[in-house]
């Protein structure tokens, strides 16, 4: 059983690799678009609902990061914790009060998560395109529902993605929590929970969808190869004298 599972996973991974190699443009363009959407969508929502940002910066301290990581001045745990939290760049919209109108900070963890989700989408569409041209994947019969599910999950995840607010000891609020003012604390907790669940659902759900699609593509390719082999073999047999009639 275990061997069968590993074999199926191996076949799926092999199919993904083949699909990405065969359709690099599809993979790259979809992945890039999804990655950009992760960044652009929260900014667009906040700019529309509150006000456009007026400040962007890469964290100037990052130039000191390699030296700090190599130095003995902080413990390994401290360095690890900071690396998980460090902000790479951020946007803020100024306000005439004692806090920004809103802030959106992107950290290392966000970039890793975005890259992972973007790769999944890229792989999904590369597989889909690959299957269509190869006639595998049942002409996309397994792909469409998976694509719709992935798109729904993704939209849900993106619209409730966490947004770092640069306020006084502020909690991390979902973008929609920042966008619409006056929400109760329980609504915000609900949105934050939804954000976590939705993000997890996107990552796990999409991984499964891609694996299943890749497995189907791999299986169909194997089936096609086998049937092509049978046909070929049959044609040889047809040519054998004495088999006719």
């Amino acid at each position, binding site marked *: 059983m275990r061997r069968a599972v590993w074999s199926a996973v191996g076949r799926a991974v092999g199919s993904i690799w083949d699909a990405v190699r065969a359709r690099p443009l599809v993979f790259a363009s979809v992945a890039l678009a999804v990655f950009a959407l992760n960044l652009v969508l929260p900014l667009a929502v906040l700019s529309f609902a509150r006000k456009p940002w007026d*400040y962007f910066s890469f*964290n100037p301290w990052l130039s000191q990061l390699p030296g700090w990581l190599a130095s003995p001045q902080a413990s390994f745990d*401290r360095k690890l914790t900071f690396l998980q*939290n460090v902000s790479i760049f951020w946007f803020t919209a*100024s306000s005439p009060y004692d806090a920004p109108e809103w802030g959106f900070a992107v950290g290392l963890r966000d970039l890793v998560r975005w890259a992972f989700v973007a790769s999944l989408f890229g792989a999904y569409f590369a597989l889909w395109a690959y299957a269509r041209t190869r006639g595998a994947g049942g002409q996309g019969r397994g792909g469409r529902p998976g694509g719709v599910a992935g798109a729904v999950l993704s939209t849900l995840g993106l619209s409730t993605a966490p947004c770092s607010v*640069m*306020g006084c000891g502020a*909690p991390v609020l979902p973008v929609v929590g920042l966008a619409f*003012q006056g929400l109760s604390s329980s609504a915000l907790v609900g949105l934050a929970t939804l954000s976590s669940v939705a993000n997890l659902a996107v990552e796990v759900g999409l991984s499964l969808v891609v694996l299943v699609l890749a497995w189907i593509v791999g299986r169909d390719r194997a089936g096609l190869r086998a049937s092509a082999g049978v046909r070929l073999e049959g044609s040889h047999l047809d040519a054998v004298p004495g088999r006719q009639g």
Partner: protein
Amino acid sequence: MADVSRRDFIKQLGVTVGAAALAGPVGAAVSAGPAEAQSAAGKIPDTPLKVGQMTFLSGPAAVLGEPMLKGTLLAVEEINAAGGVLGKRKIEVVKADEAAGTDANVKELKRLKLEEKIDFFTGITSSGNTPALGPVAEELKVLTIFVDGCTDFLFDKAVPNPKYVFRITNIQSADGVTAAIATAMTWPHVRRIAHIHPDYSYGRNAFDHTKIVLDKMLPGVEVVMEGWPKLGTTDFTAHITKAISAKPDLLVSSVWGGDYIAFYKQGLGYGLFKQMKFTSTIAFGVAPHAIGKDHPEGVIAGVHANYYFTYPPGNRWPLNTEFVKKYYARWKEYPNFQAEGAYVAMQMYKLAIERANRLTGGWPEDEQIIGQLEGLGYSGPAGYIYFRPDNHQGYKDAMTGFSKNVDSYPFQILDPASVITIPIRNITAPPGWPAPALNGPPTRTYDWIEKTWPKMRE
């Protein structure tokens, strides 16, 4: 978790009412006051010491910024009148308006360093500006003491090892925690709680920390109403009527500044304060003279858990008496927490220079001044304050109190006889407490309270 009585827990926290004595500085070996100066060692240049000061000088946040600038200027005038830093270097202040926006502020800090060649930078009110200016100050190697601009973001996510940047502001979580402890001590029978907070990070933070502490200290407490007006709101009618109709025992609020003046005056019209107890985290924190005699008496009127000019009172703490006298004489108004913080920031910078000079002789390098600032304890008008070496954050005890009309002031004040003080170390997460996970508890202190404070019995 052990079952602890509220009374015992409050004792363990070290809470005092009308404090007979001020607690000593935490973790600081020595605490010095402003009168420590001795003659300078070595050769001191007589060129001006240039200080960049940036705060809100226009717009609605000027109610916070102007007292900050006045506090800085008062300290500078005092230092210059005494001959300058180390008796030689007169301070020259270069002002900048923080209301220009974050992008312009970053450019201005660069200009101040590269063109004006400032030696020291101070001020800053907005928590949107410290995360932008802090890393730039580190990059430019500008010795900086932020007076406010409190946000966990700066040291948690942008600069993990501050070298040049210090911050003297109060600890934000202390506002909600202090207000809740004072409430539990004063009105232990309240159970139905209404909240009205400005809908931005400060209001959310005040709500979270008040709630977690009240949940721990008052068994069976429930939130019966929440109102989240936009910052800058002047019409609170809908929130006030909603609060009244929820029939709470207590209303908690962190509305501040001009918003608060509008809020309490509208609340008076609806008889709000006669129908429920009232606790504020910051009602008396912004501009003491803006609070009219019509303000409800006997309410918990917070001061950002930080400083109020009537405390420590009279001859109990001459440093405060002198500071208030000098400030009033200079500006014809009373100081608030921003004024005190800015004043203390300049005095601590001067003290660190003097100490570094005694060790090294001559004008000290920035690294030597920083070495003195780290762990420096100082006796200021509000009491003791010290810079924790690991995070460069200033710590001083939290306070709140009760509103009272007295004949000696034309506005309502915080009654110095019933001020509640709490050692800051007992209400903030200890050093090394891990940062909460994404979408987890809002702050380290919230997480620490949730995990380590017992549920209390009556």
